[in-house]
């Protein structure tokens, strides 16, 4: 973001480079396993992590984030900033200078026309592009010459690094995709399965949802890289099997997203064939509290909308008691071990934006009981509190996943200790995270009292992430239950402060406002109960060198530096 972090990134990249290059293609084959198989190699049409990361071996953006969240130039000569004049003084345009030496894997040069084309491709309204949001506010792209790209914004943008930075918006080759604009994007099978790229590898054979075979790109910009001549990218199965194939049988070199119980993963590592690596990004597992009444007795237009406030969860004392009763440290230790950290914040990273609150770390059952006593909730003979004939009973839903079910069981017990009765429900992820407005079980509809899931944001700037909790952004019947303000929080002060954030260009001030917004949602109002700051977990074979875990971009961001020890 600033010069210091760029330099830092460069230093780190150097530090991790292998001591001696044997040259391109001298280390044979590298085998990668993703237990979710890639289904397409064009991230503009999918945006699934598996698809973004597999395609990141082939196609590249102008710049990537490194393991610390700092930007590293990939296809450009340097990162444009206000300081070096790359970002205009009014912050309404940013100028990228392409590295003229870079060519596509077919030997033709990379030009600014390719970059402009990629923008046009994604913005075509009939194309169904998944990444249009990355181009929010962009009015157009100018290409004064073959190596200069000027991106213009409608308003001053404190963070102009949305387009073409990070894994979601790589550059497509104009010559290849020219006939795939608009509605035809969906049927360009050959192009979507085998994009021509500038990355270290190129596709030989792609079997969707199964396997990709790749070979080193002869025209890659560094003549000594990649060290591997071929790459096998296998998909499918489950996380346990993927971990086993790297750490116990040694069949594969790299396994992605090993979301396993900590003792299981430790046992695998003890087999001695592989190493577990963890990287922390912005992912936070949280319990969202429904501020509206999900009771099935209400009619469809009122249920779980702001017309009907929740009968008891709209009382901050109840919400605070629910939060106090949870032991996040223990929860995280059991569910994630070294792959998670307990947190009290919605924005748990990057560090500069995070409040790093610690008020919630200590479990306080007695304090929670006190709060509920004071709020007028009387403990009944069956161990459940009541007030005005209302039972303190909640429905707690989440998606189906072994760790989440352990979390549910533990939280249910703790809430039982403060006189809250909990009914658990787990739902298939394809329904829970789907936006089908006719299904009662989506997380947007929130037909339960509390629900648990993980969310994060792209890149390193939380502005749009915090915008989710603005008034009016909640899912409701009028918006076909689409919307991002899941807990239906609404505070004019929050909206005003967020508006200030969008106008502020000074970084220090932005950090401060973001922290303030985070605190309003968490420790001031308890509308959400953050639990765990989740890390990305992967494993690589001990014989594989050069791997650097990255949670801000594709995990395979530096695959060209990988080598065989």
């Amino acid at each position, binding site marked *: 973001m600033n010069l210091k972090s760029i330099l830092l990134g460069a230093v780190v990249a150097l530090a991790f480079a292998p001591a001696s290059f044997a040259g391109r293609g001298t280390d044979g084959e590298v085998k990668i396993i993703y237990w979710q198989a890639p289904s397409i190699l064009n991230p503009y049409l999918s*945006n699934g992590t598996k698809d973004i990361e597999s395609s990141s071996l082939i196609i590249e953006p102008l710049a990537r984030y490194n393991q610390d969240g700092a930007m590293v130039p990939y296809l450009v000569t340097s990162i444009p900033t206000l300081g070096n004049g790359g970002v205009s003084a009014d912050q309404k345009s940013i100028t990228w200078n392409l590295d003229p030496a870079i060519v596509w894997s077919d030997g033709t040069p990379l030009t600014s026309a390719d970059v402009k084309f990629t923008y046009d491709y994604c913005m075509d309204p009939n194309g169904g592009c998944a990444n249009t949001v990355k181009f929010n506010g962009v009015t157009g792209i100018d290409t004064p010459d073959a190596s200069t790209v000027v991106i213009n914004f409608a308003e001053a943008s404190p963070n102009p690094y949305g387009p073409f930075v990070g894994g979601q918006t790589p550059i497509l080759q104009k010559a290849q995709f020219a006939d795939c604009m608009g509605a035809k994007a969906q049927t360009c099978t050959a192009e979507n399965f085998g994009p021509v790229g500038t990355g270290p590898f190129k596709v030989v054979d792609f079997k*969707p949802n199964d396997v990709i075979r790749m070979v080193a790109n002869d025209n890659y910009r560094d003549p000594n890289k990649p060290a591997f001549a071929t790459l096998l990218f296998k998909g499918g199965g489950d996380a346990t099997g993927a971990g086993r194939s790297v750490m116990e049988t040694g069949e594969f070199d790299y396994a992605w997203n090993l979301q396993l119980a900590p003792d299981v993963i430790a046992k695998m590592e003890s087999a001695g064939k592989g190493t577990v690596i963890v990287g922390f990004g912005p992912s936070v597992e949280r319990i969202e509290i429904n501020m509206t009444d999900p009771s099935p007795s209400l009619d469809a237009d009122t249920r779980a909308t702001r017309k009907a406030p929740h009968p008891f969860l709209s009382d901050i004392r109840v919400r605070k008691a629910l939060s106090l009763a949870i032991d996040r440290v223990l929860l995280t230790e059991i569910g994630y071990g070294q792959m998670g950290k307990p947190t009290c914040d919605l924005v748990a990273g990057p560090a500069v934006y995070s409040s790093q609150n610690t008020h919630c770390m200590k479990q306080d059952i007695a304090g929670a009981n006190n709060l509920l006593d004071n709020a007028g909730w009387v403990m009944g003979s069956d161990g459940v509190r009541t007030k005005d004939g209302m039972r303190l009973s909640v429905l707690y839903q989440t998606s189906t996943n072994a760790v989440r079910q352990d979390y549910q069981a533990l939280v249910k017990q703790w809430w039982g200790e403060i006189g809250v009765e909990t009914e658990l429900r787990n739902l298939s992820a394809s329904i829970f995270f789907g936006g089908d407005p006719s299904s009662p079980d989506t997380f947007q509809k929130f037909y339960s009292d509390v629900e648990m899931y993980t969310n994060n944001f792209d890149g390193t700037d939380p502005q749009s992430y915090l915008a989710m909790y603005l008034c009016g952004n909640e899912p409701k019947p009028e918006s076909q239950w689409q919307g991002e303000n899941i807990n239906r929080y609404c505070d004019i002060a929050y909206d005003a402060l967020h508006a200030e954030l969008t106008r502020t260009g000074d970084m220090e001030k932005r950090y401060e406002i973001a922290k303030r917004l985070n605190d309003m949602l968490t420790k001031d109002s308890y509308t959400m109960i953050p639990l765990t700051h989740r890390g990305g977990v992967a494993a690589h074979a001990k014989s594989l060198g050069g791997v650097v875990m990255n949670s801000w971009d594709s995990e395979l961001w530096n695959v060209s530096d990988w080598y065989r020890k």
Partner: protein
Amino acid sequence: MLSFTIRRLIIMIPTLLLISLVIFLLLELAPGDPMAQIPLTVPPEVKQQMRLALGLGEPMHIRYWKWIVQFFWLEPQVLIDYYFGSSFSEGKLRVISWQTRGPVMDLVVQRLPQTVWVVGMSYIVGVVIALPIGIYSAYKQYSIFDQTGTFISMIGYSVPPFFSGVLVIVIFSVTLGWFPSIYDTTLVVDSWDNFVLQLKQMIMPVMVLALQTTAQLSRFMRASMLDNLNQDYVRTARAKGLGESVVVMVHVLRNSMIPVVTVIALGVPSVFGGAIITEQVFRVNGIGQLLITAIQATDLPLVQTLTFMFAILIVIFNLIADVLYGILDPRIRYD
């Protein structure tokens, strides 16, 4: 028999159309959203755009009609083009999978080899083992062989593949290191070494699947043999002085095969349907894995097409079973 077969073949058409409609409606009405796998960071308006791009904005009956036309009219044309080099299907829209934006039939063709190899082989192995076990167990009812066979097959049946698969992986790949735990679908059998590799990677999934088939079939075979061994005609045959082997292997076996043939014929479509859990465990990535990932991603065109192809196979094999009844037992008349 011939007129019966022809009649049944004609009835097949409305049956299949009805089945296709039911499958379509079922999938339309079941909850699930193709955008569920897209990260939560993508805003709802963009997801709505993507849904429209997939054709989800059109009314249901139009989508059904399109699918039927594509399946029955366009895909056969593609097949003809492929074999004869003609160009009937050029420029026409095929059934496109939502996940991959590639033609569904290409995916099926890609997946068939490993499914037929692994699941088909396990089926053959299972049948070949099960029939003799069933016959001998029944002939020597309550012998040690029978008791052991019963014991092993029932345990085999009550252990689900998500467990037995992991168990054999832990024993044979992790501890002993004999076989690979991950099936390599890119392996081309073009030399003796590769053939050995292919055998090695097939042996564990085939074992796990064959255990289930064997357990089930040997039970049915045994029960059916037992029924027939006590029939009057067996006594008559023995009284006539026929050899024991002729009595059992010709007279009894032929009559016992009727229920067993049903079970075997009903199982054949599942060879092409793949084995969902076992394929997942060993990463065979065949049809079964294709179907389960499609269901999880609510990839409706893919699920519809796969289940409908499966339905066609089921209808055909049920017909085959019915015809076989008539051949095995001339007394059975269909009219």
